[in-house]
Each structure stands twice: as structure tokens, then as C-alpha cells.
């Protein structure tokens, strides 16, 4: 396991595409903050002005917007990292090793987690710089609250990357995986199911959907919200990891 992870990590750190994605995300995050400043109006978060928000509130406002650009970047990376190896057949060089199929998926799950972590770091740094530059205000607010928010959102985003990885493994198609990733980032499925629920009434399963949970602002002081986030993240993380590993173990490789 450790050797396959080392190999994937080596590929991760030597791949220019990853740095390009992070740089692009950083640039667009700064640009997004500039645009927020330019067209700032009350109402974003309970009528608060963005310039008065602390980092936790600011992150919740940004993440509530769809499409979630962070999810789009994570989807692109997850599909790219898996499909670039699959389509060139590189896996054939090591997949015959004992338990390599399982380890290969687990390693990619860890790598997508690493990329998600990098995205959060870039987002945080970009927020700090952008808010300092354009709002002259980069208050962090309650450190504990911010930490809970970042950890909760990190696990939700990581679970999302695993969902996309799983879709790539099963579909074996770069285009199909990217399209599904983009649709999920737009929360199309969440909106469709929410609309369907409002017609049926008395059902609220959509709030347990992963992307719905990501884009819905929560109170991280509230234990129910924390449990909700932790539950959704863990269920999606474990369920899709399990499906991806099982599929890979049973897959006939070409």
C-alpha cells in the first residue's frame, strides 16, 4: 500500500497540472473577492455586508454559491488523476501485485484528499489576501468555529472527490465523468430532488445529499448541524470508497 501511495504521491508532486489548477483557483478566488467588493450589497448572509464578515461567514457565503468552483476543480483533478493513468494503461505495470487493485484505489482516495486539502489552504490564503486587499478586513472570527467549519467542509469536499473518483472508475470515460462532476457542482441533482420533494411533501431526503450539505450554510456551534455534516461526510466517504474498491477488485482490466 505504502509503495503504491508513494508512486501516486510522486506523480502528484511532479505533475504541473496540479500546480496549474491550484494557481488558477487562487487567481479566480482573488478575482471573485474583487468582484464581490465591486458589486457588494447587503443580503448575502442575513443582511450582513461582506466587508463586515469574518472568515467563517465569508466561507459560508462563497460555498453557498453554485456552481461551487471548488467542487469543479476537485472534480477535474479527481477525473484527471485517475483517467490519465487508466487511459495510458500505466496500471498494468503494477496492478498484478498482491492487493494492488485495492491499494491503488485507496491511494487515489488519499491523493484526492491531499488535493482537497491543498484547495482549502489555497482558498484560505486567497481569502486572507483578497479580503485584506479589497475589503481592508480579514478578521478570522471565532477560531474554534472556523476550525470546525473548515474540517467539516474539508471532509464533505473530500467525500465529493471520492464520489467523482468512483464515477470515473465505473464509467471509464473522461468526458462523462467531467460532465457528471460539473452537474453535481451545479447541484442540479440536489435541486431536482428538492423540487420533487416539495411536490410530494413531508419528505426531506435532499438535505442529506452531499452537495446540498456543502452549499447549505450551517451553524457549526449547533450540535445537530455538526452531526448532520459529519454523518453525511462519513456515509458518502465510506460508501463510495467501498463501491470504488469493490468495483476495481472485480474489474476486468484491458
Amino acid at each position, binding site marked *: 500500500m505504502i509503495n503504491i501511495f508513494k508512486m501516486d504521491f510522486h506523480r502528484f508532486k511532479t505533475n504541473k497540472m496540479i500546480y496549474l489548477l491550484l494557481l488558477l483557483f487562487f487567481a479566480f478566488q482573488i478575482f471573485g473577492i474583487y468582484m464581490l467588493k465591486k458589486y457588494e450589497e447587503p443580503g448575502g448572509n442575513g443582511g450582513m455586508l461582506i466587508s463586515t464578515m469574518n472568515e467563517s461567514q465569508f466561507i459560508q457565503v462563497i460555498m453557498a454559491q453554485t456552481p461551487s468552483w471548488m467542487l469543479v476543480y476537485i472534480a477535474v483533478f479527481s477525473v484527471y488523476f485517475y483517467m490519465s493513468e487508466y487511459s*495510458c494503461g500505466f496500471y*498494468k*505495470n503494477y*496492478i498484478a*501485485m498482491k492487493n494492488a*487493485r485495492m491499494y491503488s484505489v485507496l491511494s487515489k482516495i488519499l491523493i484526492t484528499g491531499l488535493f482537497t486539502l491543498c484547495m482549502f489552504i489555497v482558498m484560505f490564503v486567497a481569502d486572507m489576501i483578497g479580503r485584506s486587499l479589497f475589503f481592508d478586513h480579514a478578521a478570522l472570527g471565532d477560531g474554534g468555529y472556523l476550525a470546525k467549519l473548515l474540517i467539516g467542509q474539508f471532509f464533505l469536499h473530500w467525500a465529493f472527490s471520492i464520489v467523482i473518483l468512483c464515477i470515473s472508475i465505473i464509467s471509464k470515460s473522461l468526458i462523462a465523468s467531467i460532465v457528471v462532476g460539473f452537474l453535481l457542482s451545479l447541484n442540479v441533482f440536489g435541486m431536482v430532488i428538492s423540487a420533487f420533494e416539495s411536490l410530494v411533501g413531508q419528505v426531506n431526503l435532499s438535505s442529506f445529499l452531499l452537495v446540498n450539505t456543502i452549499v447549505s450554510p450551517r451553524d457549526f456551534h449547533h450540535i445537530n448541524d455538526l452531526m448532520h455534516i459529519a454523518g453525511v461526510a462519513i456515509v458518502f466517504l465510506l460508501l463510495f470508497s467501498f463501491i470504488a474498491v469493490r468495483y476495481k477488485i472485480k474489474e476486468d*482490466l484491458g
Partner: protein
Amino acid sequence: MSEAIIEVSQLTKQFKSKIAVNKADFKIGKGEIFGLIGQNGAGKSTLLKMIAGLMYPTSGEIKLFNRTMKDSHPYFERIGILIENAGLFPHYNAYENLDLIAISYGLTNRKSHINKLLKLVGLDVSNKSKVKNYSMGMKQRLGIAAALIGSPDVLILDEPINGLDPQGISEIRRMILELNKAGMTIIISSHILEELSKIATQYAILHQGEVIEHHSREQLLLQCEDRIEIEVEKASWAVPILEQNLNINHYKVIGEHVVYIYDSHIETQHIIKSLVENGVMVHSITKHKQSLEQYFLARTGSGGGSHD
């Protein structure tokens, strides 16, 4: 045959309604070069992928090193593979590709091992070009180096000469013979029997998913050797006449009525004359000339050998 290290019994692979490999049976001995010959779509790659652990058989059994294989068994890692195309990242150079594989194997002293392999396959160690800029021959050679990273006991090469120029084919052939000389068992598939005949020691002909023939090199060459086929009243009556009167020593009796004569100095009319004069009735006599390619085509129903 030397000690069998790969044994395939009733191996079958079915994709929905299509049977790609049907009840394949054969053994491969240690140190052999096993040639798997078949037309495109005969099931060669599928069969090799099952032996390499990339695909799961629908039924049947594979024994590697006298152990029956189950899912993800460690014995699969003693097999190096180059199946269809070399699995290489196009935007990395040769060294970087091999280095990634070496990391996955947990090798220490990677640099010297990789440089040794690059030298073995005749690639320039200092070449920093990306693999996407490589010629087909260079990619195939790098693919062989990749297959050798884990120091396997068995090397599987699926159509390694496809798309190569004559010089490339000759280099691959030389490399295969060198590896075999060093004790490696090699399984090589091709649809070009003439090419396989230059290196393989055992042959299996695969047609529509079935192994229809399995020969040693000697048996195959004998099948394709120029010969005169005679059908007589009784072969046992004809043989002493052929030996004593015509001085024929190189022959083979096939059943009760047929004799194959491999001595090339004899004319057919002399054979007929001698047999008839000694009271042996000759039903037919044919000169049989067949290249390896014709032999293969005749077996796979795509053509036939020439008789004149």
C-alpha cells in the same frame, strides 16, 4: 518439456454472448519461449490477460508455479507484462516512467536498476525526450524494460513486433533471445508465424478462442517440411521397399495407408515404379510444400497449403 510453471486448464472467458477463450488447455515449461499464434480477434490478448491476472476467467483454472491462482494472488507479480501497448505516461520520459514503477515495487537503488534496464533494451540513458515523442519501436522497448522492473520469472509479450520496421523486429528478437538465455520464460503472441518460428520453442495455435494445436518447434517444422505424401494399399508393405530399393531413410508412417517421405532427392515416378513393380498398389502420390504461414492459415481456415 521442462518443469511446467504455467498450467492452464479448461480456461474460458465469456463476454456476454461472445466466448473469447474457450476451454484452453496447455502447459508452459520453465525456460521456454512459448509462441501463441492466432489471427486478430482469436482471443490471444484475453488469454494472456487472464494468465497475467488482469482479467478473471469465467471458468477453468490457472496454475502458476504449481499454485492454483485465486484473486490477487502474489504469484501474479512474478510475471512481467507487455500486453497490447506499453502502459506508459506520455508526458514523462523513459526514466521517469520506470522510476514510478520502481517506486510501486518498493525498489531500493532505483537509479542503477533503471539505467541497467534502459541499457539492456537499447535506449539512451541520457535521453530526456517525453515518451509521446518516441517511435513505436522505442515505446515497445521501453515497455519491455517496464515489464522487467520487478525482475519477473515470466515475461508476457503480446504482439511486441506490431508496427515495427525490420530493424525494430530484429532488435526485439535479439532481446527476447538474450532474456531467454538468461533463464527467463517468455510467452509471446503474434499473428505472424514466420516471425515466431525464429524464436519460439513451443507453439499453440489459437483459433476463435480455442487452442486447436500445440506443438514443439521440432514438430511444427516437421509439419511444414517439404515432403512426398503417398497413399498405398498397406504402409507396412511399402516401407521395406522404400528403404531397400530407393534408399529412403527419412520418412514417417501415418496410419495404415499413408507414408510421408522427407528425402528430397527422390523423384515421384521412381517411387511409383518401385512400389508397383513390387506389388504394392499406390492410390495417390502428392508433393507437399507448405510454409509456416500457409500451415497456420490452413489450420485457421483462412487458406491452405499448396500441393503440386
